[in-house]
Structures are given as structure tokens and as C-alpha cells.
């Protein structure tokens, strides 16, 4: 089949594509959205920093999961280092 760019459409090509289900909440996050987010990311950061940088960094990351300085270590959508 040959078609020009002008006649092909992504809507047509994805017409039969199954829609992905919505993501479900993480099981360990029974609180509100933003709180769940902070807690989840905080835990990840703490674990990662604890393993990577020892106690000093771990304490730093613990502080960062609070409201003040999380941006210094990484946020909720940070890429893996």
C-alpha cells in the first residue's frame, strides 16, 4: 500500500489500537495525591541515597523529602542518576 503523507493519518493508524488502562494508585500510598507523590518519591530517594552515599547523604535526603529542599536532590519526576 502506498499513501502520501497528506492522506495518511495517525488517527486512522491507531483506530484499532487498544487504549492503555489508567494507571492504578500504588498500594503503599493510601493518602492524597500530592502526599502520596512526595512520600513515594521521598522513599525512593532515601533508599537510593542511603545505598549510594551512606548515612550523611541519607540524612540529607530525609530532610529533602520534607517541604523545604527537595529540589536539591531530585523531584517527583526526576530521571535515574
Amino acid at each position, binding site marked *: 500500500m502506498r*499513501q*502520501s503523507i497528506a492522506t495518511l493519518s495517525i488517527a486512522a493508524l491507531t483506530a484499532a489500537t487498544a487504549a492503555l488502562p489508567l494507571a492504578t494508585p500504588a498500594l503503599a500510598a493510601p493518602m492524597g495525591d500530592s502526599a502520596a507523590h512526595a512520600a513515594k518519591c521521598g522513599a525512593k530517594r532515601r533508599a537510593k541515597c542511603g545505598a549510594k552515599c551512606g548515612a550523611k547523604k541519607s540524612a540529607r535526603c530525609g530532610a529533602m523529602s520534607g517541604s523545604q529542599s527537595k529540589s536539591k536532590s531530585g523531584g517527583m519526576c526526576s530521571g535515574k542518576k
Partner: protein
Amino acid sequence: MQRQEVSGAAAQRGAARQLLGCYAALAADAAHLLDGVVQGRPLVQWEHYPADDFIDRETGYQYFYHCHAPGARTGGPEHGHFHVFARLDADRHRLDERSEADFLALIGAGARPRHALAHLLAVALTPKGVPSALFTVNQWVTGDRVLSARAVVRALAGFEMRSAGDPLVNRWLAALIGLFRSQIARLLAARDRRLLAGARAPRREPLLEDRAIEVLSSVAIDADRQLRALGQGRAARAQVRLRISR
């Protein structure tokens, strides 16, 4: 200048063909764009897909997909989004440090740690895997280095994943960035304007750390509309045709 515009348009048409080619290949296999990213894992809010991100240490690019909780989505038909990063330790991302320092000073963020990652772009997808929006995020969201729009545009222009990633999504992302390069440039310019305005206005905390501001700029995109515009623009020229093998 005119030659630049012509070659830019040609690159955009090439990106359009690449993008369509990706969806044609998916349609032929009855596959979803995210199959190779989600890899059969259940979709859980905030999880990274893949779990450790796709990281190409050779080219210095990185991306992952994730979904926010329903109340925290960017709006519209978004299912989730890709976050695309540059790894600044890669040779190709050598920065003009003086210019970047000037930029940081202008937005009131002079003395920031030099993170090895820089967020370039976020791409929202519909549940069917069609791009619906592009957006930039505040610094606290990704916690990495803020680069000027100029540096981000430059980094995105070379986007390439070779040694990591899902091959189809790698091509798809590169094509999408090429197809929407004008919108991306405007999106990033709008982000910088907002950062500059934020630096001038009196604030209780720096804009980059203001938890009330997650998205700095966004633009809804319609890939089909963009493709139609390109198709019409080139109608008088040679008819480039796309072969789809089924």
C-alpha cells in the same frame, strides 16, 4: 536564510515520514507505542517505565514514561507522559558555561549545584499512544539542572538513542521532536519568559522551588494537523510517498 528554511522543512517532512512509519509499523503488528516501554508491567501511578529509565550513556540522552495520579495530570486526554533528559557528562552536551551562568543569574538561580542531568521536554500521550501535549516542568519537579531554552533546543536537535531504549520509541521520539521543533522552540522560549518574569517579581520562595508551580509552559499538539499542514505545504513539490508494508 532561505536555504536554512528549506532544509528545515525537509527535515520536518523526514520527521513526519518517520513518525507515520512508526505508527504504520505498530498498526501492522497490532501493537501499542508503549508496549516496549511498559514491558508487560502493570501500570502504577508514579512508577518509572522502564523502572531504571532508558539511558544511553553514549549519546547522553535518557527517557522514561510515567503516569500521575488522576488529579495531578496536566489535563486533557493525557494518560501519562515521557520525560526526556540530557546527561550532561556526555561529550555532545558540552555547554557554553558562561552563557548558561548568565542565564541562571538572570532567572535568579545563580548558585545552583551542577547536576549531571537536565530535563529537556515532557511529551503527554493519550491512552492510544498519540502525542497530545508538550510541556516543560519546574526545576523542583525533576530536581536537575535548568538549562536555557537555547541550550535545550540545541540538545533536542541532536536527540538520538542508540545503545538503549525501545528502538521504535527511540525513532518515534526523535521524529516527534523533529516534527514539532517550531512548537518546542516556542514552548521553551515561553518557559524562559516565565522564569525571567518570576525572577523579577517579589516572591516568598524562588520560582524554581515553588511547589505550586509544576508546569512552566505547555502546548497542545495535534500530530495529524501538523502532518496535514506539511502535506499541503509540499503539494506543489515532488510527491514523496510513504511505503507501508503490511
